[in-house]
């Protein structure tokens, strides 16, 4: 990635609202042409970071660069960046065509050029023939596409998307996730996407940053963050994870370093099962089991007192272990699946 051009760079960015530090020392590099996601719970500072790239908000200290140019104090209209808003923010008094062509109209482009490019955009977002409608006549998914087309039409260097799929139902959301990704690959523009939905982040992103309490906990590719979470928060927010620390950790791994292990990496075996050299184990009592169709989730209370979540796929074969509640079981996993984590950054 080092040879890639940097699209957006955050240098020690802080944003305080009164006494509250919404963004607390963020350093980030987002590369040209990538689909980058800022993931985090509400209040984690991800939206404030997005708004500072757009220019709606400005850092209290630190600096933001766009393609090497310092834009920290620039107003939104002087930045080559467009936004797809959470509520779409379509202009209700304009038609779909006028909404999409707005930025070109502001730039005083000739009418026939605007018309042609609007028609092209409508085709890109599969809304051909809808130019004369009013936004109020469209469905949620269609409005979403109009907002996307409006932000893409004059080819910004960076497109910002603020939880744009939040208002859509699950099915439409999954469909739009794929479509967004396709459009991004087709237009080749850097997308910066803000969401609190980890599944969405894993599905679409080339890389993602996990935000917590105004800080970036970890940056990396989805598989990297999932397989190798750096902090307890990242481990817990992206997928579910077991966090084991203290004496129990020492008993299992021989070191008191806190580590995480993903539920699907753990194997349930009978108490007398022997384990390989590369494996580690912990015994406990089966507390709960939940059948979830594709897989079954077990909760095991380990002898040290912690609870361990184990997920097994329902493959249809004979079970290796009696998994009735109350029976003692042995949980086993490869040592390489223990990931040491920090308490937080």
């Amino acid at each position, binding site marked *: 990635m080092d040879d890639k051009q940097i699209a957006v760079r955050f240098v020690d960015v802080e944003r305080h609202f009164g006494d509250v530090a919404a963004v607390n020392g963020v350093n980030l590099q987002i590369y040209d042409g990538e689909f980058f996601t800022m993931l985090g719970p509400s209040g984690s500072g991800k939206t404030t970071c997005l708004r500072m790239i*757009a*220019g*709606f908000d400005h850092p209290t200290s630190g600096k933001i660069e766009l393609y090497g140019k310092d834009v920290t104090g620039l*107003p*939104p*209209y002087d930045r080559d*960046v*467009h*936004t797809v*808003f*959470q*509520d779409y*923010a379509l*202009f*209700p*008094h304009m038609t779909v065509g006028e909404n999409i062509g*707005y*930025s070109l*109209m*502001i*730039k005083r482009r000739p009418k026939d050029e605007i018309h042609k490019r609007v028609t092209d955009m409508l085709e890109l977002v599969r809304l051909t023939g809808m130019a004369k409608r009013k936004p109020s006549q469209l469905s949620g998914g269609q409005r979403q596409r109009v907002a996307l087309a*409006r*932000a893409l039409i*004059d080819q910004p260097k960076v497109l910002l998307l603020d939880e744009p799929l939040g208002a859509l139902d699950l099915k439409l959301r999954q469909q739009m996730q794929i479509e967004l990704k396709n459009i991004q690959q087709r237009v080749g523009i850097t997308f910066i996407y803000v969401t609190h939905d980890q599944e969405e982040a894993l599905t679409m992103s080339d890389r993602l940053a996990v935000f917590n309490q105004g800080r970036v906990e970890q940056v990396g590719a989805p598989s990297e963050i999932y397989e190798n979470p750096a902090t307890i928060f990242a481990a817990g927010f992206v997928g579910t994870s077991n966090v084991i620390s203290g004496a129990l950790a020492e008993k299992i791994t021989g070191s008191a370093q806190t580590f995480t292990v993903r539920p699907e990496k753990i194997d349930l075996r009978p108490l007398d099962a022997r384990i390989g050299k590369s494996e580690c184990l912990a015994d406990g009592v089966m507390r709960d089991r939940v059948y979830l169709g594709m897989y079954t989730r077990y909760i095991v209370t380990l002898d040290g007192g912690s609870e361990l979540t184990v997920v097994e796929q329902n493959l249809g074969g004979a079970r290796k272990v009696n998994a009735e509640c109350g029976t003692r079981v042995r949980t086993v996993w490869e040592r390489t699946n223990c990931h040491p984590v920090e308490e937080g950054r």
Partner: protein
Amino acid sequence: MPGVAVNPETSKRSFASLGKRLSRYFHSHPGFSIFLLLALPLLWVGVVYFGSLGALVLQSFFHYDSYSGHIIKTFTVENYIQLLSASNLDIIFRTTAMAVAVTLASALIAFPLAYFSVRYATGRLKALLYLAVILPLWSSYIVRVYSWKLILAREGIISWFLAQLGLSGLLENILKIPGIGGPSLSMSMLGMWIVFVYIWLPYMILPIHASLERLPKSMLEASADLGARPFRTFWHVTLPLVLPGVVAGSIFTFSLTMGDFIIPGTIGNSSLFIGQAVLRYQGTAGNIPLAAALTAVPMAVMAVYLFLARSLGAFDAL
């Protein structure tokens, strides 16, 4: 249960069950509930409002016998023809021009004030501004108009203040302008215009304020985001979306000015406004048909205004 003393417990219970039966009845007869809901307002709007309006229009087509002073109930359009006489046209034109001037000035003052209050003021300042707009409406309208007569008088505070600034000459020259001038501010059209704007301004501010409140901030951000500088955002987004509020406010300022007779009777010179003319025809002269016809003028002007506003797209954002 005949012959059995009514136990307070059971009577309470039967009362409760009556309530239950009633609510079930309403639930299963939604039409009846709506009828109950609307009966009073419909009676009010239908009889008191539209009924009297109909009576007014009807009377404007009656004949007034000027010798006997009687009203003869035959159909005639002579009252409307009489409106076209030079003196009546003069009144209509003067009143309409004043209403337009008052509406424009109110909108120009109200918009920035409402914009500031919605976009920038918070907490106390916002409450204070709101109170400043509402408070004058609590005191008597007549008292306020008479206070203005004193303020605008030749010996009033405005003349005094301008004299302190050495600007008396400026005031003298403005008062010499034909049409709007006069012997003093309190006896000029300019003074009347100032008082009209003062009195009706809250009715312009409140609807504009309400429609600005409804304008989402993200709409303005989207416009800036797409490259529009503040003035163009104002022109292409803010103004069109707030226009219904401006039109609503102008309906108030326009129709209130068109019908008023107190302010033209207190401030300004002896030339008549529609409200005064109506008062004179129906009160002193007893010529109710002509007064009724004259009253139809503001309604017609408003109808034309709303039609124009609609065809210019003022309600597209609704």
